């Protein structure tokens, strides 16, 4: 791409995010980690599992563990509605993991300079999982750091 002076404009890397709502906040999940989005289905509770794992589900013949982001961030427990969705994330080391969200909003594209990396001053639990704050049409979207969600060390 060239601008009006015929100079090459360096494209900042743009990343697509899926915007979901949990409680009354919006969060962005890097789309490259997202394998699938499915409706709520029957969840099988796993006794003695870590608290933030709600259970396991059957994803087309595969057993996939389900994590509650609300529990992970120490928010109120999930209430499943018609809008609730399970986002199946795919990670290198953990394989498939589902996370429950209240609602899936849209897909947005943000370039790196649209994400404020310094805005993680909050002291709350969830700040650990946020890599930055993106701005989208005047709304703020907290960007999840996917790898830290699955990091078991900081959280029980």
């Amino acid at each position, binding site marked *: 791409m060239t601008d009006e002076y015929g100079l090459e404009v360096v494209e900042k890397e743009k990343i697509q995010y899926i915007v979901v709502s949990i409680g009354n906040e919006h969060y962005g999940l890097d789309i490259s980690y997202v394998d699938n989005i499915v409706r709520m289905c029957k969840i*099988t509770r*796993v*006794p*003695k599992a*870590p608290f933030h794992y709600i259970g*396991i589900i059957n994803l087309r013949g*595969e057993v996939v563990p389900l994590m509650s982001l609300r529990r992970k961030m120490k928010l109120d427990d999930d209430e499943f509605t018609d809008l609730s969705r399970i986002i199946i994330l795919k990670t290198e080391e*953990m394989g498939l*993991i589902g996370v429950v969200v209240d609602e899936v909003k849209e897909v947005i594209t943000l370039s790196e300079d649209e994400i404020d990396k310094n805005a993680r001053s909050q002291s709350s639990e969830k700040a650990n999982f946020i890599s930055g704050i993106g701005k989208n049409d005047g709304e703020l979207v907290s960007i999840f750091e996917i790898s830290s969600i699955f990091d*078991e060390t900081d959280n029980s």
Partner: protein
Amino acid sequence: MDVSQYLDIFIDETNGHIQELSDNIMILEKEPENKDCVNEIFRAAHSLKGMAGTMGFKKMQHLTHDMENVFSEVRNDNIKVNSTLIDILFQCLDAIEGYLETVKATSGEGDEANEHLIKMLNEFLNGGGGEAAEPSEEKTEETAEETQDNAGDEDLEFKKLKLEDPDIDSLRQAEASGNKLYGMTIHIQKDCMLKAARAFLVYKAVEDFGEIIIYNPSSQDIEDEKFDLTFNIIISTQSDIKPIIEAVSAVSEIEKVDCEEVTSNYYAEMNAAPEDKKEAAGTAAPAPTEEKKAAPAPAASAAKGSAKNAPANKPVTTRTVRVDIEKLDALMNQVSELIIAKNSLVSISDQDTRSDENQQTFHEQIEYLERITTTLHESVMKVRMVPIENTVAKFPRMIRDLSRKLNKPMELYMTGEDTELDRTVVDQIGDPLQHLLRNSADHGIEDAETRKAAGKPETGSITLNAFQEGNNVIIEVKDDGAGLDIEKIKAKAVERGLVSEEQAENLSKKEVIDFLFNPGFSMAKKVTDISGRGVGLDVVKSNIESLGGDVEVKSVFGQGTTFVVRLPLTLAIIQALMVEVRDEKYAIALGSIQNIENIPVSEIKYVQAEEVIHLRGMVIPLIRLDKLLDSTPKEEESENLTVVVVKKGDSYAGVVVDNLIGQQEIVIKSLGKCIDNNKIINGATILGDGEVALIIDVNAIF
């Protein structure tokens, strides 16, 4: 010719032949006159040679060729089998295995020529009949001694160099031009990091005085650091020897320099002289030094080779299963039947399904289909099943070696080698079993005198029993050695701060024995290279647990120890009883279920505040599955309890469930890494209606 496509077959078959050789040589050691056995060995060695030749592995071919020569002589009664020969043969086998490993990793055979082995074989061969066998035996004993202690350093290594004719010619030429010849053996310090660089400095220092005629090892090998801590040179010089020694010693990290004047005639004579003469000449036979030099070299080069190759290229082999053609035929038949069943279902679905008659045939077809899928599953599992034979076959050899090394007479008895297990399990069970056997050999079996004093036969026996029990395969490693000293283990546990003294007093025998599986817990008084470092039983346990099995220890002090390894027969599909706890469904493997009982609440008794039931003369602890699984508490207890009696080894437990659903074939799925910290649940399965049910690991409730 591109032979890479045959590599898999080559590796597979070579493994087979090596095993065959090893087995037969073991037999030969016991019955040196067994002609059948010699013939078998000859055949195997011959096939090995042929295959190595076809694949273009020249060095391997060379070695096997010489082995074959020896066997051929043995077969013709020209050579008697003795323990020296057996030892050499086993070394050769190890070398071939070494080649095979290199082939597996790199698809080339590597650089190790194993010349010392070839030489040993040839010496044995040239030694001729029974007479020569005697002296050569002495010689190898010497070899052993010399390799063990480093006193061998005293010998002047350069004197034992075997020189080729051209080399001797150049020595003669140097002599003719009026130069003196000096042989030198340079010893480098053990912790030297840059051996090649030191050697190079030595060469430079020497070259100030004269010319180096002979390098041993070759200068190329020196450059590649393919030598141990010593190397030899022969120099021709006008100068006196003293300044040369000083100059060489001045090079840092040089430990010692041996130097003496030599003549070309000396080496020429050496070459011409037959083996025994050389011994008479006062210098030790070449074999010891050759071996000493060469022995660490393969290890080093192998290590180097693997380090180089490991990150870069993956092993060239794929994991294969050899399948009996009969099993495949059965599989094929069942698949054809499956297709027929499918076709009949299709034809039924074309017709009006509401008529009663069609309903009837429909159900029949479904039953038929069910039967086929079950047998199909069994056949596929059978294909995956391999006898543990391949894994355990190497153990007799290992125990034989250990027996010699530890100087304790012992025998390994194996039963049930034909017990079949899933391929993945068989592959991974080798190391843990090997460890348990080493453990038995090193710590379990006492030395001959102690055994005699205790009234036991002098030869210790280690038994490896494998058999099937329900859905499990049990492998027992049993020794008739000293047994575990519970008090000693307790003391050690207290000493290591694992428990306080008072706690230790109250521990049951089983709890005490469990300390053995703690990381770093070793009862060995001294650390040997066989065991005793305390790295081991914990690894054994975790290895076996990762396969879904467990280890148990039984021991009677003074009479021996038994390690019982319990492994699941298959990893993928099991028959299970589906039960209900509240509204959740769980599966219990049918293999561990003994029976199912209806017990009135009033029959529950209490022992030490634990619920038990009395059943046909047995007192069985009662386990409330709902409590174990943190289910929602029940509002009111019913008068009758449904109890599933499960067993693990000799112990039983009654598992209380709410409801029985029925028997079902289930496919085991892993829970994934994030929630597998749960011992009671060992997997999940997907039911017909798409719901996920958890599988209870009965072994974990005990």
